[in-house]
């Protein structure tokens, strides 16, 4: 065994991971090679120090801080400001398919001060998120940093989509979509076939360990996984679309008794962000100031979508 082989196998030798034969050959080399013997000795010494490194005490109020953060998470409107740093993007969105939804919010008294347009607010998390299977070793293949979300993205998509957006058609679209609003309203008033009592009950949020999320009087805080069925016209719901883009719905608030999102926190690969925006644009109009996110395409960003009521025309 030569020095190169010895150095390569030294770590496994120290941990007793080599076969008896290989360990014996390595030991023989160490006995006659001063440099490798010194490498062995100093490595053992460092490992010895590491095994005895002092334990660091966590802050005394650690549990309280965790609980405070979790409680904020379940407090309507509380968590988002604390966990997310707004990117300052405001996207007024005329979400035609959500017309019925918005009517329900009004019906429930959920929004007291209507905004001019339906709005989606996108915020970026303080830290980028990675896919859950990210731990699968991809060896050293580093994906180059790219800027898949560039400053012209929103303007470009809006421009590309403009010819497809026939204003008259869209108005009709809103009218067509208002039919389900009646049935949803019926559901809430108890006239639908299916009882909505269960729907009204406050779900545990996605953070399953918390027993009692604060009571929400107007909005239903539900578990995303149970929601997002097909839309009225058989079109995939926004939730389905997000999942099909490889995104996850982390938290969702629904209009009580419906599958209609009032607010969603999602995680989506940066590389799919453009597709998400295109999908939103396809469902309505979108306008936004320029923004830029420089992240690797496979990194996840956290996006908060807030749906707000449109001012009655």
């Amino acid at each position, binding site marked *: 065994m030569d020095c190169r082989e010895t150095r390569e196998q030294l770590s496994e030798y120290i941990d007793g991971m080599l076969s008896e034969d290989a360990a014996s050959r390595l030991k023989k080399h160490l006995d006659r090679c001063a440099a490798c013997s010194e490498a062995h000795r100093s490595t053992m010494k460092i490992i010895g120090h590491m095994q005895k490194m002092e334990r660091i005490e966590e802050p005394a109020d650690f549990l309280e801080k965790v609980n405070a953060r979790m409680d904020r998470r379940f407090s309507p409107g509380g968590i988002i400001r604390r966990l997310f740093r707004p990117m300052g993007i405001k996207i007024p969105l005329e979400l035609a398919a959500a017309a019925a939804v918005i009517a329900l919010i009004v019906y429930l008294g959920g929004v007291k001060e209507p905004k001019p347009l339906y709005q989606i607010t996108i915020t970026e998390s303080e830290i980028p998120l990675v896919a859950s299977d990210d*731990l699968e070793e991809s060896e050293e293949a580093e994906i180059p940093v790219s800027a898949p979300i560039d400053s012209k993205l929103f303007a470009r998509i809006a421009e590309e989509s403009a010819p497809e957006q026939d204003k008259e058609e869209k108005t009709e679209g809103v009218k067509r979509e208002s039919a389900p609003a009646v049935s949803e309203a019926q559901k809430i008033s108890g006239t639908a076939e299916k009882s909505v009592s269960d729907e009204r009950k406050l779900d545990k949020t996605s953070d399953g360990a918390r027993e009692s999320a604060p009571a929400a009087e107007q909005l239903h805080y539900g578990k995303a996984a149970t929601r997002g069925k097909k839309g009225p016209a058989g079109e995939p719901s926004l939730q389905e679309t997000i999942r099909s883009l490889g995104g996850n719905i982390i938290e969702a608030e629904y209009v009580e008794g419906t599958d209609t999102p009032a607010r969603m926190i999602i995680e989506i690969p940066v590389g799919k962000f453009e597709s998400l925006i295109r999908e939103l644009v396809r469902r309505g109009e979108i306008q936004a100031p320029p923004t830029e996110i420089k992240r690797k395409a496979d990194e996840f960003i956290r996006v908060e979508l807030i749906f707000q009521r449109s001012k009655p025309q």
Partner: protein
Amino acid sequence: MQEQETKFDLELESAGLVKASLAGDRNAFDKLIMLHKGNVFNLCYRLLGDYDDADDCAQEVFIKVSRSLKNYRFESRFSTWLYRVTVNTCKNKFRSLEYRLRSKKVPIDTVTPMDENEKIMDIENAAASPATELLRKEIDRLIQKAIDALPPKHKLVVVLRDIEGKSYEEIVGITGFKLGTVKSKLSRARQELREALQGKI
């Protein structure tokens, strides 16, 4: 043997607390945090090298755990699952721009004792005293700085193995790396640490 029994007891207790938490017992989840917060915090600290980052990250770990506890299938040890969540959360931090910028400010060649020519004495045989305690802390500091300068995957493996005392199989379970990868990254990490700390401790 005693260590194995302690581990077994910890797993048993954790499993009970997980079940109670899933049944809606909020106190049980608090107990679960109390039981594991030290390990989670220390792993975060060793991987991130910063007390405040470790505090924030460890809190985030338990928030994530509360969210995804329902996905824990009792097929692996709870501690392995928890370490996996911790490692994932730390990896997110590694990728953050802020962390990368800060790491760049601490290149490996800055890992030096207080004075360039000063060599930390061997404390192995020194009697316990305030002076040896100071030396121990200084060695800890030097090692932590050397760890901070390692590439994330090397750091991950060497911290789990040499500080946390995890077996190769446990490291595979926690990181999702293949066994061969664990071996090669660990070997490389130890060589890098030896080179960085040569003549300094």
